[in-house]
């Protein structure tokens, strides 16, 4: 037995169980319970997983994610622990940590019970949005038709001012839409976080601009309704939706215990 414990998640179970050799580098994973909660762990040496090899790092992280998924299947929604969080000491130290943080962990488990995290991004096509805005603004339409009759120099200046006006209008239109979608989606979620970092890469949305990005905590019964709402948005002209999940509630358990 190693002198430290690698943590994967905290689950709702009072049982000491073995989950098999499913851990990082095929380490045997098991639970250490305290009352009705348990830490899902493997025994390790007291040093972190470190490497310069990006592929190995990815492998470890995917293995960690796999254990979280397996624990979720077995025990229901768990509190996912960040990668490479290692507790010094043996199973008793784990139990001690659970007991000292029992109330908070229990509350958090209650809060995420029967829920999962989903990630939503809404993209738009600038040109499509611009032509829609143009249609709704007869003055600009008029300006555009005048362009063709003007001499080159003046046409250039007119074009520039048209582009700038159009940009402003597209801006306010996307802000308006983002506000609307945010409140629509929020109604279907238990909790919603507006994300301001791009945490994914997806070739399908290349060249599209991002209108909004959310992490949503949703109870299982509501996933279908959210899917329908997103489908409606996706059907709108020039708008595209990316919808991923279910994830363990990573974005909603920022607690330090």
């Amino acid at each position, binding site marked *: 037995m190693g002198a*430290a414990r690698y*943590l994967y*998640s*905290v689950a709702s179970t009072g049982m000491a169980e073995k989950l098999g050799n499913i851990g990082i580098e095929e380490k045997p994973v098991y639970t250490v319970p305290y009352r009705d909660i348990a830490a899902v762990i493997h025994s390790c040496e*007291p*040093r*972190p*997983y*470190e*490497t*310069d090899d*990006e592929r190995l*790092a990815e492998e470890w*992280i*995917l293995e*960690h*994610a796999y254990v979280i998924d397996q624990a979720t299947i077995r025990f229901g929604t768990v*509190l*996912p*622990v*960040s*990668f*490479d*969080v*290692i*507790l*010094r000491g043996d199973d008793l130290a784990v139990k001690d*940590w659970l007991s000292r943080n029992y109330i908070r962990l229990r509350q958090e488990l209650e809060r995420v019970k029967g829920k999962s995290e*989903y*990630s939503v991004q809404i993209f738009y096509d*600038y040109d499509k949005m611009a032509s829609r805005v143009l249609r709704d603004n007869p003055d600009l339409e008029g300006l555009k038709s005048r362009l063709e009759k003007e001499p080159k120099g003046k046409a250039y200046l007119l074009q520039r001012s048209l582009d700038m006006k159009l940009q402003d209008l*597209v*801006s*306010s239109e*996307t*802000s308006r839409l983002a506000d609307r979608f*945010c409140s629509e989606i929020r109604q279907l979620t238990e909790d919603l976080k*507006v*994300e*301001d*970092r*791009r*945490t*994914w*890469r997806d070739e399908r949305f290349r060249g*599209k*601009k*991002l209108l*909004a990005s959310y992490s949503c905590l949703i109870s299982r019964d509501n996933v279908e309704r959210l*899917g*329908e709402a997103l*489908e409606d948005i996706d059907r709108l002209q020039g708008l595209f939706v990316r919808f*991923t*999940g*279910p*994830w*363990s509630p*990573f974005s909603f358990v*920022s607690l*330090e215990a």
Partner: protein
Amino acid sequence: MRPERESCLVEVLDRLLNRGVVLNADLIISVAGVPLIGLNLRAALASMETMLNYGMMESWDKSARDWHALHGNARPLEDGETLVFKAFGYLWQEQGIVSCCLPGTWYLTDKRLFLWRSEKAVFEVPLQSICLLNDAPSLERSEMELVHSGGSARIRLPQLEAFRDKLEEALKSARALKA
């Protein structure tokens, strides 16, 4: 519309590295007083995050950024402040007999140095208050001591040399500005 989970590696990495439960610093493992939470690994992937951040700035137009400034999470930089250097690292604090180590993102701007964590600055010092940079032999290679008017702090980050250069430069220009 059905949610999908395939081809989301970057999303998985972000979740596992930047989100989820973490332990209080006094419980995590450390070797000879130097805390280790996969420092290199996180740093390697943190630079990816920075890269993605820049990608975001390209493809997000102004309206989306304005909207997020209004509705989004707290942002580390203040208006009129310029970012000089940013890297994942630690602050090592000694308060009486208790010593603890805070992981986070170090931000060096033209005005201040701060450690950003959980959407707030947990340690902050204006450049003008920084008196001295030390690397005493007892300290670890990737660690330095910063003496400021309110006390001292130990900073640990993998790209210490680059950080130190930038910090010295920033201090020089801050002093020049004052004089």
